[in-house]
């Protein structure tokens, strides 16, 4: 008897769950299909075509991709993107880690420093880039004016093929180091006190404690942050657009800038789509790596 009642009660409820469940996710699902899934497929399709903005498009098979492989400008851009990433990521991570270590001490007034270093994160990238374009300006820029006080003639930072990229990297690191710092502080604060006490009992010094206690404990966060920062660096665009427009002589032209230029300035939509897929594959590999690492660590964490 009882069982029968239960069953009857469960029936409509379960059916209700089916209906409302799908109903609740339907707006997002619809949007997702139209605004992500469909364009993703269409981009793949476009990458196999010669696709001007106006006029007929023409199927060309893998020609766009083979063309990319022999496009000298693509390899230049690829190299620039790699330079940006390899320059930014270690600089950003090491600085963020050092700041996080200093700021996780309980000293008086330490919150002020944390705020100061986090403020650029809250500032618009475009504003930050405009201000730093001014800082790096050849005649009126603060950097060169300060150098002049030491009788050093400053360079034309953003107009020098060798210096423009480092200038953009510095600007980008300063913009975002606060974000990684905050992530690291959160991780450091979660390291158990007892581990430090044990280390102290064993007579481990500060350096030793850092390398044997803190660093291993926050390694998952550090790795995830590295992957995130790498992916972010591969997509750098705004600061390049504002500060150098890819110049001088293409020395700061990065992948997304090149995609944007091909698609929306030269209107070679097919070629640009193929370029975008190159970016997608790199990001895909990194993301899969990140998921793999996370799975392993989550497992380890529950294991411990």
């Amino acid at each position, binding site marked *: 008897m009882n069982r029968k009642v239960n069953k009857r009660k469960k029936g409509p409820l379960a059916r209700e769950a089916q209906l409302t469940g799908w109903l609740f996710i339907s*707006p997002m699902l619809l949007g997702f299909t139209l605004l992500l899934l469909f364009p993703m497929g269409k981009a793949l399709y476009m990458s196999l075509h010669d696709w001007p903005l106006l006029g007929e498009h023409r199927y060309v098979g893998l020609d766009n991709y083979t063309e990319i492989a022999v496009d000298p400008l693509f390899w230049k851009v690829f190299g620039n993107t790699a330079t940006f990433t390899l320059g930014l990521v270690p600089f950003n991570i090491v600085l963020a880690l050092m700041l996080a270590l200093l700021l996780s001490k309980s000293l008086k007034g330490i919150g002020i420093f944390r705020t100061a270093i986090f403020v650029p994160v809250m500032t618009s990238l475009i504003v930050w880039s405009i201000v730093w374009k001014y800082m790096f300006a050849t005649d009126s820029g603060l950097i060169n004016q300060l150098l002049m006080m030491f009788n050093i003639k400053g360079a034309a930072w953003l107009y020098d093929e060798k210096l423009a990229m480092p200038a953009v990297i510095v600007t980008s690191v300063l913009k975002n180091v606060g974000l990684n710092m905050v992530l690291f502080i959160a991780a450091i604060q979660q390291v158990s006190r007892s581990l430090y006490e044990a280390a102290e009992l064993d007579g481990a010094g500060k350096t030793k404690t850092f390398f044997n206690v803190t660093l291993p404990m926050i390694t998952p966060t550090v790795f995830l942050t590295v992957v995130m920062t790498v992916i972010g660096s591969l997509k750098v665009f705004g600061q390049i657009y504002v500060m150098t427009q890819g110049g001088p002589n293409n020395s700061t032209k990065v992948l997304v800038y090149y995609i944007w230029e091909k698609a929306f300035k030269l209107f070679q939509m097919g070629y640009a789509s193929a370029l975008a897929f190159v970016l997608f594959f790199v990001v895909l590999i990194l993301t899969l790596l990140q998921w793999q690492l996370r799975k392993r660590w989550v497992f380890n964490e529950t294991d411990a």
Partner: protein
Amino acid sequence: MKPMPSASKKLSVAGVYAALTVVSLIMLVPFLWMLSTSFKQPQDIFTYPPQLIPPVFRFQNYVDVFTLIPFHRFYFNSVYISFVVVAGTVFFASLAGYAFAKIPFTGRNAVFLVLLSAMMIPHEVTAIPMFLSMRDLGWIDTHLPLILLPIFGAGGVFGIFVMRQFFITIPTELEEAAMIDGCNRFRIYWKIMLPIARPGMATLTIFTFVTIWNEFFDPLIFINTRELMTLPLGLSLFTDEVGTSWHYLMSATVMATVPLLIVFFLAQKRFIEGVAMTGLKE
């Protein structure tokens, strides 16, 4: 009882403060310089040595900006687009997030996984076909793409993820009690779950707002008319136009930055925690 700090310890504390002061100054000097230049007369920008306090304060810079560019329009567009996107994202993402966390329907996990995996699609890939679709719809040079794409695109998916994580932690007993009282799902979601999920919504709000307020790529490709531009796009165009009229550029950037920074200082803790929380999950 604290032990007396030794001389070497004092020294290292001083070192920490010194290092932090240097880094903080590097972060803050650009803002001070921006503020200082925004009040300068053009001829005082190039004076040597550099002067932090302008010899003459020229407030007219701020007034001039409004005649040079439709700055108030940029501002209004940025504010209202951010507002609509935040409201839309929080509503639709929390609705879906609640369903993914609490309603046992068939295919739930599979769909969630598909949504999540879409988060790795770089925006630049979908932007090109989207541009063509928006052109076919006649939506180029309107705010529709700037509003719809983030709500229902990757930003929305991220929102679902954040909200689902949050709803999962809420015990099911509450819902069961309400259901026995005859509440339907939407009422439960609206009247019971959403109020509890306020911290999660606050996190999502902050994250979405900061992202949209700073969004540059989409406005760049979808908007052509000045009056329809958002702040980042308008400012970048202004940079191209006025070249080295830094006094104008800096007054514009001050106006674009200061209100947001005030909000940030008021709700600092929430902001930093929110970013730390969502940042780790991205």
